[in-house]
């Protein structure tokens, strides 16, 4: 059953994450000064163990449990239904969005807020939003960047990133 397989897979990923976490915590964080003190290692270790146990339970439930209960219950969660049951995931979109955010951070540091925003917005317009009209691409990217720069940087006095390579704003 795909639902079962998915649960087992997620559980396995989380279990390995929990175990790796525990090993890292054990090897890098000192246990603390002793006495009555709860050291800096106790909480992270406990949480890592908890995650491992919970995900192990998830795997076991996936094979032996009663998935009917989980699948039939109404979703009383705020997450929109279609996001979790949408079937095929647009991994390309996920990758592109994530790549743009990382690029935004990188460029913000190098080019400053204004330039990096123009570049990143234009690129997102083309790749993610499927925009082809050059006028709209330029309008949107320059518009958003300048508006934000004026409203936040100048009017409200928020400190925006300065570039280390060049710094237009």
């Amino acid at each position, binding site marked *: 059953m795909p639902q079962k397989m998915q649960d087992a897979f*997620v559980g396995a990923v*989380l279990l390995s994450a929990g175990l790796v*976490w525990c090993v890292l*915590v054990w090897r*890098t*964080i000192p246990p*603390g*000064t002793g*006495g*009555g*003190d*709860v*050291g*800096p290692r106790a*909480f*992270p270790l406990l*949480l890592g163990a*908890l*995650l491992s146990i*919970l995900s192990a*339970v*998830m795997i076991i439930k996936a094979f032996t449990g009663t998935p*009917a*209960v*989980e*699948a*039939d*219950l109404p*979703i*009383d*969660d*705020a*997450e*929109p239904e279609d*996001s*979790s049951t949408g079937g095929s995931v*647009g991994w390309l979109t*996920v990758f*592109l969005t*994530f790549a*743009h*955010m*990382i690029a*935004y*951070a990188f460029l*913000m*540091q190098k080019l400053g807020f204004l330039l990096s925003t123009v570049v990143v*917005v234009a690129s*997102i*317009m083309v790749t*993610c*939003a499927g925009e082809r009209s050059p006028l709209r691409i330029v309008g949107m990217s320059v518009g*958003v960047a300048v508006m*934000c720069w004026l409203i*936040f940087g100048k009017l*409200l006095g*928020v*400190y*925006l*990133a300065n570039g280390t390579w060049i710094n237009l704003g």
Partner: protein
Amino acid sequence: MDQFLNAAIMTLQPEVLGAIGLGSLIGLIFGSIPGLTFTVALALALPLTFNLDSISAIGLLLGTYIGGMTGGSVSAILLGIPGTPSAAATVFDGYPMAKNGRASLALGMAVIVSVFGGIFSLVVMVVAVQLVSKVAITFGPAEIFALVVFGLSTICGMAGRSLLRGLIAGVIGLMLMTIGLDAFDGVQRLTFGSTNMLQGINLLVAMIGLFAVPFVIQVFDEHRRGIKPPAQATDVRAELPSFRLMFANLWLMIRCAFLGTGIGAIPGTGGPIAAFLAYDHAKRFSKEPKTFGRGNIKGVIAPETANNAVTGGTMIPLLALGIPGDPATAIVLAGLQIHGIVPGPALFMTNQTEVYGIYISIVVAYVAILVMQLLGIRLFVHVLRVPPRLMAIVVIVLCGIGAFSVRNSIFDVYTMAIVGLLAYGLIKADIPATPIILGLVLGPILESEFRTAMNLSGGDFAIFYTSPTALVFFALALLIVGLQLSGEFFRKKSKNAAVGTSNA
């Protein structure tokens, strides 16, 4: 009485009213924009107060604080991205309401109950500031730890399909917050020797990533697949809550306001716990809990009343004890101090006029916010007319500004992206996102209060079970978990029974 009149005359000057109004507006703007929060707004407003007289300065800061707290609901309802952590619980029902075309009703209700909660807590403060502050003092590390455990138990109510998945999400949230420099022992935790990692994961940054990144990805994904946004979203009527609706929920509002005031009065807890507990409370005592999470207006009323009641609550320890409850009130404290107003037990003897001035400023701020936001609703709902893909682009830029401005650190922009990707993966794996935020909010308090308590008692657990207050909260937490477990068990049984009969 003379002092009250004096304070009233001083506060109702045009420049003071202007300062309060301006503060409220700045707070509303920062609160309502996803990514920007009122802590940043307060930090920006503080230098402006250096050149103002003391009453105007107080008005500006209080207006910003209150405006920010109220404004957080706007983007929570319209976009499903909370403007502040305190508004995270509002997303549950506020966002579905907006999707069903009832955005203005949710927004209107949110601002009205916010003002109700705020004024309610102010009244409590005026009447019982000394009493409440005395009670607040009795909350030591052990009691606050117990309260936080109680707060965590609300994961049960928002776990979605299964408690197990909710718990996993909560634990992941708690884990994320342990990264960085441990303030207790000065030890680095999972920093891998990187100086940048020392700052750890900021709550606000993580919250932005958690809610905004999945939103953006989903919008682009739908666009790519050619899914049109639902038609209702483009048709928004400016429908405001009727008096009947308000009166029907008056009792709920009063309970949530009490809850918010009480939790606000305990230093170091604050808005998010109050909002989550209020939401859980409303759902648990509702006759139709199934409708929660699908646009039940009670799910907006409860957290919004409670998180604004926190504003009055936090003013109690701030003024009576000189203890700021969170980074935002710490800035308000600095603003008071620089004008020679030293909060603490002596304040009510030496600076009576300023204290009355503070009370009046809070009322004025709420009036200003009520007017501005009710007028603003007509404007806000137009956000829903913006094509989603363009909105998503604006959200990315705003979140970039917001994540950076929390600590002026590029590291935080990277963190936002990574946390966002992680959150998207978890949501895809049916792990609910909201317990993560609860873990993020409560994690640091949970750990630090526990360690302080153990430190105080010399490693003896008796400190937890000898305190009646702590026991009450532990018992409440157990009760909630117990109810949830038995509920799941019976649901399972009845389902099996139902299956059995249909097969027969």
